[in-house]
């Protein structure tokens, strides 16, 4: 049984005079000790997907369809009170910017103790001991001193370590990391990813890593889901995605990772802009930017096709008729 099973998730956001269909039929599953990377550019719906699962959507946002099963329990219809028991203890989250995700007027120690106070019935003394222990676990030196400090007294990297300590305080089953390194210096990014990886081994949690940077995925994740225009366009193991990628968007993403050994200095890009999700296209959302697009791509959504045991791709190129057409064309030439 999967730890987390999301099927056909739809999320909409109301704006001033329209509705943004931010997530449109997302399905994936997470096994214990998995690290799933959800990759996509801004606005692809990756962050909304996890916020929808944790019921942390903004007021305007709403899960309109789909099913979420966590650890055998259907949590789709969970109310705020029920969800509070899970959030922070079973599922916890690391946010993008540690400069803004910690309360500026509360010491970091208190911010860790708070989550222990809420979920574990511990004495204040034990809470404090555990908080200090967590601080040293995430690699903060002189944790007793840091315990009493305010966030602004710590560097960005240290703050993100504090956020991780808070997230791990109750040994969660799933750790959601929403672009955990985007706001940090490049040198710190690697450290934080390394830390997450080593902590995962220690406390055996599953991780959902949200990122727009396919480059960081290979080192840490074992599964990858590529999102575009509110849909998962391709998913599979790290090897499936990096060596066997089928979807033109995934191929474009891989091509745009800068490589040290290449002679060419121009970065490869995917021309065009993402689709407008207020009025989503009838066909494949990527079709307008796709250089392999066919007529069908603009008209109908491709089905999410199984390519191998772990690998799926939603692309018309996978259709048998597309392959025939390609062969015919080759014959012509």
């Amino acid at each position, binding site marked *: 049984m999967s730890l987390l099973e999301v099927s056909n998730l739809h999320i909409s956001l109301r704006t001033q005079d329209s509705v943004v269909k931010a997530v449109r039929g997302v399905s994936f599953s997470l096994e214990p000790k998995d690290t799933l990377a959800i990759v996509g550019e801004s606005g692809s719906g990756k962050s909304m997907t996890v916020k929808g699962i944790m019921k942390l959507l903004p007021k305007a946002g709403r899960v309109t369809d789909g099913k979420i099963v966590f650890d055998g329990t259907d949590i789709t219809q969970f109310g705020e009170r029920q969800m509070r028991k899970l959030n922070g203890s079973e599922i916890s989250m690391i946010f993008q910017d540690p400069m803004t995700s910690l309360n500026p007027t509360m010491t970091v120690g208190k911010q860790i103790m708070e989550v222990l106070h809420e979920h574990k019935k511990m004495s204040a003394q034990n809470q404090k001991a555990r908080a200090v222990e967590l601080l040293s676990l995430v690699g903060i030196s002189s944790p007793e001193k840091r315990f009493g400090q305010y966030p602004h007294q710590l560097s960005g990297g240290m703050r993100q370590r504090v956020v991780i300590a808070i997230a791990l305080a109750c040994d969660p089953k799933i750790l959601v990391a929403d672009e955990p390194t985007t706001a940090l210096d490049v040198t710190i990014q690697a450290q934080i990813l390394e830390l997450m990886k080593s902590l995962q081994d220690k406390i055996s949690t599953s991780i959902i890593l949200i990122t727009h940077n396919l480059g960081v995925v290979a080192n840490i994740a074992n599964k990858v889901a590529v999102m575009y225009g509110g849909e998962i366009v391709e998913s599979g193991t790290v090897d499936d995605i990096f060596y066997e990628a089928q979807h033109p968007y995934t191929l474009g993403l891989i091509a745009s990772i800068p490589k040290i050994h290449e002679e060419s200095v121009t970065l490869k890009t995917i*021309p*065009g*802009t993402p*689709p*407008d999700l*207020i*009025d989503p296209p*009838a066909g494949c959302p990527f*079709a*307008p*930017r*796709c*250089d*392999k*697009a*066919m*007529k*069908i*791509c*603009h*008209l*109908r959504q491709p089905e999410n096709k199984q390519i191998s045991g772990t690998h799926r791709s939603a692309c*018309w190129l996978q*259709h048998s*008729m*597309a392959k*025939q*057409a390609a062969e*015919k064309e080759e014959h012509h030439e």
Partner: protein
Amino acid sequence: MQNTELTDDLFSPARSGAVEREKISRPMRSGFQDGWFRLKQNKGAVAALAILLVLVALAFLGPLLTKYDYYTTNYGAIFQSPSAEHWFGTDKFGRDQWARVWYGTRISLLIAVVAATLDLLVGVTYGSISALLGGRTDAVMQRIVEVLVGIPNLIIVILLMMVMPAGIGTLIIAMSISGWVNMARLVRAEILKLKNHEFVLAARLLDASNGQIILRHLIPNTVGVIVINTMFTIPSAIFTEAFLSFIGIGLQEPKASLGVLINSGFQVINSHPYLLFISAIVIVLIMVCFSILGDGLRDAFDPQMRV
């Protein structure tokens, strides 16, 4: 659509051109259009604007609608309640209250608008000189402002009112002398903020001249702050005038302003409360409408202050 037959033709290439790829599907609105659109959506602000226009029209046309004027006394008809003859009644000298109220409104608005305009001119000049020159000039100008900010405005106004002969001009001057500081600080802060904004740096990198930067970037972006602040200075000037007249050092009878009218209405509140109520309602309406309109403008035109 879902059931259409899949034909070979559907699988022939159909790539989009570069133009189509970069197409932005929703229409673009400029900052001003966007703000205007937002303001029109704000029903409260639109209603406030409408009521204000009506009040301004009455302030100028109201006295013409009656055969009475604001100063002629009639001891045969004192303290009359509102009637078909005297729509707002008469006061202790038998003067027609309808004429007095609208004449008073006109005087109050006039004082407020002129005072706010003077505030604006002095404040914007002072603030922008301070911000644009910077360095030592800015430092000296700011020290002066810091001292002035330490003095409650009303104290300055009261002192000046006592030294100068009572009258409309004196009121305006007294309010302007104390009022420009706030505008100067706002404008300076706004320009300093803009000077360091990325888009100004970008313009600088693109070799835009100083003149161009001031004209294209600094002025359009400070206009919002200036207009919004003025929308708040006008009601505060109306308040100050009314307050001074109410405590007896503003305008004096037989002249009329909203403050004078409220003061004389308050004297007879026990016996003839309508005299106070009518002028109080007018001043409250003006203040409320300006306040709502000011808020609406701020929400519509100042994206940074939008909630």
